[in-house]
């Protein structure tokens, strides 16, 4: 069996990639994909820990998280489409009519 540390390391790398992606990318869709990467890195962690604890609950959490992620996709893509319709761009640097 692969030791749990490897999974933790991999998921930490994925999470960091997600965070860096959100902070550095300017395309709303790619930012959103990076957020999904963060959620999935947490999923990996849940499954890996559940395997070590020989418990099922961690694996079940993943289903909840996937459901939430699906709901977020529905809402998020709708918002992105709405912004694209009025701005013809989903670059978040162009989305800047709010400044104080």
């Amino acid at each position, binding site marked *: 069996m692969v030791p749990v540390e490897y999974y933790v390391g991999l998921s930490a790398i994925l999470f960091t990639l997600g965070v860096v992606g959100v902070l550095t990318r300017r395309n709303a869709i790619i930012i959103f994909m990076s957020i999904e990467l*963060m959620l999935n890195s947490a999923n990996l*962690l849940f499954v890996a820990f559940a395997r070590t604890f020989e418990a099922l609950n961690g694996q079940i*959490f993943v289903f909840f998280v996937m459901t939430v992620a699906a*709901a977020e996709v529905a809402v998020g893509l709708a918002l992105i489409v709405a912004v694209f319709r009025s*701005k013809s761009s989903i670059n*978040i640097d162009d989305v800047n009519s709010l400044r104080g």
Partner: protein
Amino acid sequence: MQIVSVTDILTILPTIFLVVWACLLLLMDAFGGALGKRLTPWLTVLGLLVAFGLTLRAAGVEQSAFNGLLEVDGFSNAINLLALGTGLFGVAVAYEYLKRFNLARGEYYILMLFSLSGVMLMGAAADLIVVFLAIELLSIPLYIMAAIAQRDTRSEEAGLKYFLLGAFAGGFLLYGVALVYGATASTRLAEIFAAAQAGVANPIFLLLGVALILIGFAFKVAAAPFHMWTPDVYEGAPTPVTAFMAVAAKVGGFAALLRVFIVAFPTLGPDLVPVLTGIVAATLIIGNVAAIAQRNIKRLFAYSSISHAGFILMAFVPYAQDAVHRDTVAAALFYLVAFGLTSFGSWAVVMMLERAEGRGLELSDYAGLGRKYPALALAMLVFMLSFAGVPPTLGFAGKFFLLRAVLQGGYVGLAVLGVLTSLVSAYYYLRVVIVMYFQEGKPQVEGSRLLNWTTALTAIGTVALFFVMQPLFDWTASALLRLF
């Protein structure tokens, strides 16, 4: 082991009722024709009132449901009442505004009900996974509501920004939950506490997880340095949405924050004090200093709401001290009531002065209000004094109890910082008053019955409740008596 029993459902009946009611309204709004659409707001109010009654009926009950996933007690009932009250005010300020700006759509009220059920679940959540699900149930409808003014680029932009940053924060929260699960082999708050106390928890995972969870919550309640979204979203979202989310998201965020940290992580209290102190100091200073420079009233209130979050968090710093945490919780709830009342009142005034395409929102638009609309200006004066924490208003009472909890915890420096930043805040709140009373101008006010009523009611409440602040506080504290 039974998965779901009737007792479980009865225990959290107000929440379940609200969700079912919202689903029915959704169907009615879609298929009920013109009559159905006209009835949606009124049926929303009816649903909120029924849930209010169900919560009151459950007063004094303490029970856990769904195998310990949810905990119904004085605290969760208090949060229920706060959430439902927020909903009632939310409908009151939205109804005429949405009609005036051609935004009147049934979804608005239904999304509000879903969001409120999220708030109620956050008050009752006794498991980190439920906390995560509840926070998403609270947030996802808010993203849609922020963008509900279609083809208004500012509203769409607010929705997108809120969504991206909210989901980002959700990612932090979830990763934190996963790490805590890895450290303690459980997501139940009580079991996490037991594992941490027995020392069987992996300390690195636990501390990292708690830090990430804290970041997630800080985003939701708009605490610095995770507050960047607040001014933009508050400004861009339609004003009733701003008013609603300012209160609802704070109630939900603080409800979960208080329960999670006090029940599950008291052992980490000493480690977290420097972090929390830093967050509080940054939030108070950034919120209040940035508010000084604002000319747009919605942005001004956005920064002011950041500073209020900082104030509540201040009382949260000594959360791990057994002698203090009950006062912390009671003071935080009390402050949320004060903040909610004042907030809805002042937003109602803002809505009366707002005109199409985002005009009427500058500070200068309030010039001359004192002469032309003395009653309205008086109400706004009350709200500004309450925000600034000047007696005789509820805002003063709220700050008083929070400061007392901080002093009990022994954090004199923080209390001093709180008082000093309150003085700074008085500057920009009183500037609104000065513009209203001492500058010449022709304010345009679009009053309407519900907004007038909301303003009057909240203004009177803000002053009247000040005179019963001690009994009210004692009552809040005793409602939570057996909780923590």
